[in-house]
């Protein structure tokens, strides 16, 4: 299971980074989201993966490490705030730069730059 979990994290990271390296704002945003999923899972897993041991006193016999949960929660929120900002920045960039390329170019020759 650990291997599977890591595989998922790895694939999410890889896809996120692949998208992050695209030349348009939108895939970059999607990539950042994917990456933040991966990161959240990674951070989450740093406390160990346990089934049916929610860190609620009384709900489970041996609760799991609650700290990563709190951290991931904070990270999710911050990630959301950042995503929101970058999404709107992308919109703004398109209106200011006339293109949704991250470098503001029309990019007819392509992303070879």
């Amino acid at each position: 299971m650990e291997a599977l979990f890591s595989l998922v994290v790895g694939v999410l990271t890889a896809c996120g980074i692949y998208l992050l390296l695209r030349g348009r704002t939108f895939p970059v945003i999607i990539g950042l989201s994917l990456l933040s999923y991966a990161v959240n899972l990674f951070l989450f897993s740093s406390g160990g993966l346990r089934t049916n041991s929610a860190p609620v006193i009384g709900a489970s016999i041996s609760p799991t490490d609650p700290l990563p949960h709190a951290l991931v929660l904070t990270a999710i929120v911050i990630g959301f705030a950042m995503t929101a900002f970058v999404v709107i920045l992308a919109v703004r960039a398109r209106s200011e730069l006339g293109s949704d390329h991250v470098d503001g170019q029309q990019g007819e020759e392509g992303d070879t730059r």
Partner: protein
Amino acid sequence: MLDTALWISLTLIVMAMAMNVYRLAVGPDVPDRLLALDTLYVNSIALIVLLGLWLNTKTYFEAAILIAMLGFVGTMAICRYLLRGDIIE
């Protein structure tokens, strides 16, 4: 008996989800995929409830409520996008 039923039910839901994903991948059009996604959401409610039955806990129940509520909102948003482009006019 309950375990067997639970197991059967889980298997069926899992298979259902797999089929949803197939539709999501194949399409052919956006509404098809959207339908598939929505169904995936709904099925995952069942999955969570079944998990709760399996683990004999109701801790995760609120997640199901949220999926029911929020999945709907998400689907509506995309529908509106497809219909009007602009979801908050």
